């Protein structure tokens, strides 16, 4: 049953743009991007990066805003209803279920990681990192996660309480609604995020060479690590796929979240300019701010070779191991405050993304079952709180990684390919083009019609096939899994199947209810 009441609307356009930009700007902008750039050709990485921004990132933003606003006209705020409107076929709503499954699954583990940033910001200001080094920080992190024990943490309960606090904040914001909750959060968190990032960039670039006895350990060499181009790498297809993957992840497309936000637009509200503005805001946060903090400061304190080792350990190591050690260093005056700003910045980046992940399910329950917001948020909270227990307590067995791979990596590209084909081919490129340009404050250049119809789906299919062969197949067959982790990995798969099955059942029930009414 479609909700007979009026749907909520955004209070202001700038609030909407900040909310969607908040959805896109996440931990990846400040941690993943600099590592990817440095590892994949430095400045030369920006060539494929910008090409894919034009061929993949911006088109997908327009497609998702277009699908979302179109679905909103029919009072659908989530992918099953939106796909059903685009394609009059029984299958469509079930394909849309992927949009709910992906955002729900990512919400479960992402919010737990987000709670670590809140915890680390508190630890920073309390001076917990003053005795930590880059060698001791891995144990600090793993003891906080309950994987090992240390002098600071002997149990997981600190992490657990902060997880509860973070989820409570998320659910409260979702309960407050679009204008009073999500939009208000974006209007506070996004300017603060940019302010903190600019303060940190200024601090980093004015560091120079913190230890004059080690002249190679300088901020300039950190920037050089990211920006000096290695043109030889441009011939390597891996670099191009890395750039496509980074563009894909950074804009938070393929999740069903942008659709949900765009569904609260009025039918003639602009989407052409708003989508481009959110994409460019995300790039500003990533390329200008994100690339100017973690890697340059790491090279300045630890040197290039050590930073390479840290970066090879993944972007997570850079954020949660190297950065706290720097902020605790005696060489960085007021390090506690800069550490606090760094982790609070990550927390703001995280929470503006996680509330976006909760919104599709809330909208689905409201729009398709006529639930009030309180009941919808409580239902979501119950499912998430049960599921996250496995993530928290089985973290060391690869439970989170398994969910992240299928929902947060491979699932995104599958869903993005589905929505692009549905919108540009099944619904029809001409109708889709009209939908995206209707009410537009700018006219989308005509060349994007052809890019969205032919090139974007081809690139997505290419990425999907490559990832399937390179990673998905070995991951599915547990090729690199430690034997002791295998039962837990299967547990993660069963949990995901239960979540997906539950969503399919609810979609089926919603459409059956509708049949009875009409």
């Amino acid at each position, binding site marked *: 049953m479609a909700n007979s009441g009026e749907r909520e609307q955004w209070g202001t356009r700038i609030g909407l743009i900040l909310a969607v930009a908040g959805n896109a700007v996440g931990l990846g902008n400040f941690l993943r991007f600099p590592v990817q750039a440095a590892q994949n050709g430095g400045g030369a990485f920006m060539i494929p990066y910008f090409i894919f921004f034009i061929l993949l990132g911006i088109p997908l933003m327009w497609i998702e805003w277009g699908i979302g606003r179109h679905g909103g006209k029919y009072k659908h705020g989530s992918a099953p209803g939106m796909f059903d409107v685009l394609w009059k076929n029984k299958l469509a709503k079930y394909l849309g279920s992927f949009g709910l499954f992906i955002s729900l699954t990512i919400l479960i583990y992402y919010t737990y990681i987000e709670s670590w940033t809140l915890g680390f910001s508190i630890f920073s200001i309390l001076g917990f990192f003053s005795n930590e080094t880059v060698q001791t920080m891995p144990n600090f992190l793993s003891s906080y996660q309950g994987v090992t024990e240390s002098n600071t943490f002997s149990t997981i309960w600190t992490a657990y309480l902060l997880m509860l606090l973070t989820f409570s904040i998320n659910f409260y914001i979702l309960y407050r609604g679009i204008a009073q909750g999500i939009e208000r959060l974006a209007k506070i968190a996004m300017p603060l995020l940019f302010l903190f990032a600019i303060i940190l960039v200024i601090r980093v670039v004015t560091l120079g060479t913190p230890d004059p006895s080690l002249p190679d350990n300088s901020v300039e060499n950190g920037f050089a690590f990211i920006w000096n181009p290695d043109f030889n790498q441009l011939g390597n297809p891996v670099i191009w796929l890395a750039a496509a993957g980074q563009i894909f992840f950074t804009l938070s497309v393929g999740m069903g979240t942008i659709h949900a936000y765009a569904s609260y637009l009025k039918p003639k509200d602009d989407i052409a300019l708003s989508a481009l503005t959110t994409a460019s805001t995300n790039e500003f946060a990533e390329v*200008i701010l994100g690339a100017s903090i973690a890697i340059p400061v790491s090279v300045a304190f630890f040197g290039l070779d050590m930073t390479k080792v840290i970066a090879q350990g993944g972007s997570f190591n850079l954020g949660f191991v190297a950065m706290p050690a720097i902020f605790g260093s005696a060489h960085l005056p007021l390090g506690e405050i800069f550490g606090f700003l760094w982790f609070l910045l990550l927390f703001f980046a995280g929470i503006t993304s996680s509330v976006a992940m909760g919104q599709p399910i809330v909208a689905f329950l409201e729009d398709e079952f006529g639930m009030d917001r309180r009941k919808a948020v409580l239902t979501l909270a119950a499912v998430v709180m049960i599921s996250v227990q496995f993530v928290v307590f089985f973290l060391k067995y690869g439970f989170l990684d398994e969910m992240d791979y299928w929902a947060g990596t491979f699932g995104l590209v599958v869903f993005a390919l589905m929505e692009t084909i549905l919108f540009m081919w099944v619904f029809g490129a001409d109708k889709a083009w009209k939908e995206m340009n209707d009410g537009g404050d700018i006219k989308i250049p005509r060349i994007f019609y052809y890019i969205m119809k032919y090139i974007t789906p081809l690139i997505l299919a290419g990425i999907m096939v490559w990832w399937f062969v390179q990673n998905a197949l070995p991951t599915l067959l547990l090729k690199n899994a430690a034997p002791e982790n295998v039962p837990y990995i299967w547990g993660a798969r069963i949990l995901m199947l239960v979540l997906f099955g539950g969503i399919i059942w609810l979609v089926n029930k919603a459409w059956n209810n509708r049949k009875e009414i009409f």
Partner: protein
Amino acid sequence: MGMTTEGWIFLILAWGVILSLTAYCFYKVLKGNNS
């Protein structure tokens, strides 16, 4: 090591493109009457 000329060119180009695009977008958004 230090920044090479090519490194500076890539940094300035990338920053320039993104700053211009962001400034253009926000100029158009703020000029609109429903912001």
